């Protein structure tokens, strides 16, 4: 039969009893074999957990984390740093396109010509062929201090 004070034994195991409550339970334990066994079982099973092994980290773990972090930061940095360049290029393209339109009044659709000139000036195919055009070099000391976020 289960002792009604069993749960108190469990609370004792996690330090959830006041000193007075613990003293009262300890007096009870002297006369209650079921609670004593429960207490001992909780203690021994807790000790058995010490048998769980530990694993060692791979020797290159830190390097791998750093490589992933640098790669991620590099990607974000490129996107953020590309934005001002794109903005300036687009503005320049617009100015040139408007000038071209004024020198060719016979163009039937000036808006279309602006778009075509933008494509040429941004040179998208060249960027696709050579993505290194967008890559930032790390700082002089080799660090990536400004990741742009």
């Amino acid at each position, binding site marked *: 039969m289960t002792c009604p004070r069993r749960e108190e034994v469990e609370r004792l195991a996690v330090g959830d009893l006041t000193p007075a409550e613990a003293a009262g339970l300890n007096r009870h334990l002297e006369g209650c074999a079921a609670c004593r*066994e429960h207490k001992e*079982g909780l203690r021994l099973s807790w000790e058995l957990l010490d048998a769980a092994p530990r694993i060692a980290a791979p020797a290159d773990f830190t390097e791998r984390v750093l490589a992933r972090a640098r790669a991620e930061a590099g990607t974000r940095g490129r996107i953020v740093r590309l934005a001002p360049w794109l903005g300036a290029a687009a503005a320049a393209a617009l100015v040139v396109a408007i000038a071209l339109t004024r020198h060719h009044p016979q163009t039937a659709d000036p808006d279309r010509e602006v778009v075509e000139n933008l494509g040429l000036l941004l040179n998208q195919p060249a960027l696709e062929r050579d993505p290194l055009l967008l890559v930032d070099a790390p700082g002089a000391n080799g*660090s990536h201090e400004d990741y742009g976020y």
Partner: protein
Amino acid sequence: MERPDPDAELMLRFQQGDESAYATLVGRFTEPILNLAWKFLGSRTEAEDLAQEVFLRVFRARKSYTVQAKFSTWLYRVTANACLNRIKSKTNERVRSLHSTGEDGRELGRSVQDPEAEEPGLGLEREELHREVRRAVEELPANQRLALIMNKYDGLAYEQIAESMGLTVMAVKSLLMRARVKLKETLARHLRGHVS
């Protein structure tokens, strides 16, 4: 003003751009985080992946990091979130899989035994005990398992566990109490002779 703990100081140095401070932090905490993840997930491969994810989160958070608690408590909070999210997504995955195949499910969130984790050269009895202990821990519900690992293996105080898991100290004690009762039942076979 009280100075922050040495780990928090490293994080602040990293915030100023010192990458070596970040590397030091990773090196210092790899083993505890990796072992916590391994005990929680039961797979070495998954544990390494999760540990990497934790340190990447630290990396991403460097700009917003402020010293509010011990660095280790903050790191354990990041780890606890990552662990519980991992279990959640595994559970969702399994539910999706059940919907598509209709097969019977094992206990949610429990992982397959990791063959790499077995230690060669151990006596059979000891090896079996290792396996049983790991199984007993893995069978605990996620919250109980996490609280238990942090307390038993990482030596975290109840207050730290509570902060890491976003719980009250009372809730942590309750989780640990239920975990210990369940462990006693699961490991009963190994307790024979000591208790009835």
